[in-house]
């Protein structure tokens, strides 16, 4: 049965119009058309609640944290630590000591590579990742393996873009020092069976780091339920500011790890002969942190909670189904990434038209999509394509915007006579 946009929208449980009012940028005109922002997997927009929290901090509370006895410093410290608690609850970590503020997911992976894996990795050892990874979960491991003469092994994916788990046990060897896997693929949207991978790895006492950058805006993330050892996220993928992220690490492992960056705030005492490192999580937060951004991230977690993850997932699944059906009606469109379990994004190619031309023409219509290799070149090679066009949806997107996307794609095909 074909439903109209309006009918589909009325079945959703979210008040999208009200939500859209919270996002000032959604009122913009681009090239004379209302902005249809469908590039949320690259970076999501911030609601007024996040922008205001950052602004309020700058206008009323700005000072350095963990230092002064004066009022502003205490307020700033209070807000910063309050944000840590919000993220702890958001990820359901058991302790605040397990929540380390970073600059983003990339920073989190690098922290684990340098402070945890490096000293455990010897010549001939192995690091296991998957063919679906973003460059941020490939390159740090590649560099480490090269330096240590270790081997980077890769779990394959099938034609739907799902990790093939059949031979997982063969990939988890006595030489495997860590497993890196993303929770949701940024390029294809595949939701990976992270819990299953963690269980298999833990049976052999192999730790697992999860790149959760794409999961926090869509999934209920419970690090204790997943059982993973590390979980890295980015603020700007979940409606928060850029320059802030979080690394969750199991306390038992963090306790054993040496510092990552060094300087102020990560020490208890310093003399020229001896340095005593600070307790967790501060040991891994050298220097003045991105205070305003951390507070903004806390506000973003509040905002997501206020809508409710269940409602978000239902609504976004409806958008995904709608986009898949509508774009699927165009014969020239070929989807890349057709996993059974998918987050709300569609990656596709149009035979005979390069994605960058698609992106430019859609931009002319006010529609923002990502075109390129999505920092996942191995995924592109797996499907023998240079790039895709990717439309990724958030809870503030509408079926009307998807209708505009579909019309834009039809226009591209007409112009290129594809």
């Amino acid at each position, binding site marked *: 049965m074909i439903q109209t946009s309006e009918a589909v929208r009325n079945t959703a449980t979210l008040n999208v119009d009200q939500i859209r009012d919270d996002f000032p940028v959604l009122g913009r005109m681009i090239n004379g058309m209302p902005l249809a922002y469908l590039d949320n997997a690259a970076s999501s927009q911030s609601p007024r609640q996040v922008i205001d929290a950052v602004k309020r901090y700058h206008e009323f509370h700005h000072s350095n944290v963990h230092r002064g006895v004066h009022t502003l410093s205490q307020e700033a410290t209070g807000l910063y630590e309050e944000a840590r608690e919000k993220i702890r609850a958001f990820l359901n970590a058991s302790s605040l000591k397990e929540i380390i503020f970073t600059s983003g997911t990339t920073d989190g992976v690098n922290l684990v590579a340098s402070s945890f894996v490096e000293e455990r990795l010897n010549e001939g050892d192995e690091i296991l990742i998957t063919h679906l990874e973003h460059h941020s979960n490939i390159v740090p491991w590649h560099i480490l393996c090269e330096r240590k003469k270790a081997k980077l092994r890769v779990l394959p994916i099938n034609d739907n873009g799902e990790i093939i788990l059949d031979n997982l046990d063969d990939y988890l060897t006595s030489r495997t020092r860590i497993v890196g896997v993303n929770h949701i693929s940024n390029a294809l949207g595949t939701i990976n069976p992270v819990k299953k991978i963690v269980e298999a790895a833990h049976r052999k006492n192999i730790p697992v780091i999860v790149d959760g950058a794409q999961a926090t805006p869509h999934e209920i993330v419970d690090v204790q339920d997943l059982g993973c050892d590390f979980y890295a996220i980015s603020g700007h993928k979940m409606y928060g500011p850029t320059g802030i992220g979080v690394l969750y690490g199991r306390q038992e492992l963090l306790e054993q790890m040496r510092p990552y960056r060094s300087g102020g705030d990560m020490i208890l005492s310093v003399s020229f002969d001896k340095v005593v490192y600070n307790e967790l999580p501060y040991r891994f937060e050298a220097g003045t942190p991105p205070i305003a951004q951390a507070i903004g991230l806390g506000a973003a977690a509040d905002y997501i909670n206020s809508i409710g993850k269940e409602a978000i997932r239902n609504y976004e699944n409806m958008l995904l189904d709608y986009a898949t059906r509508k774009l699927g009606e165009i014969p020239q469109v070929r989807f890349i990434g057709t996993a059974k379990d998918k987050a709300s994004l569609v990656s596709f190619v149009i035979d005979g038209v390069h994605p960058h031309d698609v992106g430019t023409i859609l931009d002319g219509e006010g529609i923002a999509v990502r075109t390129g290799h999505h920092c996942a070149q191995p995924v592109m090679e797996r499907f023998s394509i240079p*790039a895709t066009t990717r439309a990724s949806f958030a809870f503030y997107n509408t079926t009307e915007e998807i209708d505009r996307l579909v019309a834009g794609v039809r226009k591209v095909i007409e*112009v290129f006579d594809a």
Partner: protein
Amino acid sequence: MLNTHTKNLYQDVILDHNKKPRNYKVLEGHSHMAHGDNPLCGDKLDVYLTVDENNVVVDVSFIGDGCAISKASASMMTTMVKGKPIDEVETLFHEFHKMSTGKLDPDAEPNHLGRLKIFAGVRDLPARVKCATLAWHTLDAALKGERIVSTE
């Protein structure tokens, strides 16, 4: 109908060169060649030249993969430089580069760009400038004896 913003760029001439690129082949017996890469887009192309003893480009060709802008630009470049002395080719490269980055208005200032003026629209699309100039950078590298060029 396309928005005016994109219509300026995706004109019939460009769409035609994209679909039927001219001089699209490996040039046998070439004297110069270079490989060009635009890692951001995944555009890749090879430019081949045969330059004679009088420093005239007697033949030129390209092969590669990329977006319509990069392909049409490469195709039209080959039709423009064939038969020209290399100092004139270098002048065209500089003028094309300046036009693409908005530093030369081909309708207001003297230039030799001729039908290449059709690419002037990329100056409004900063993300696409590299697509239009990749072939020219690669040609320039080939003439200078460099074999690999990247626009990143």
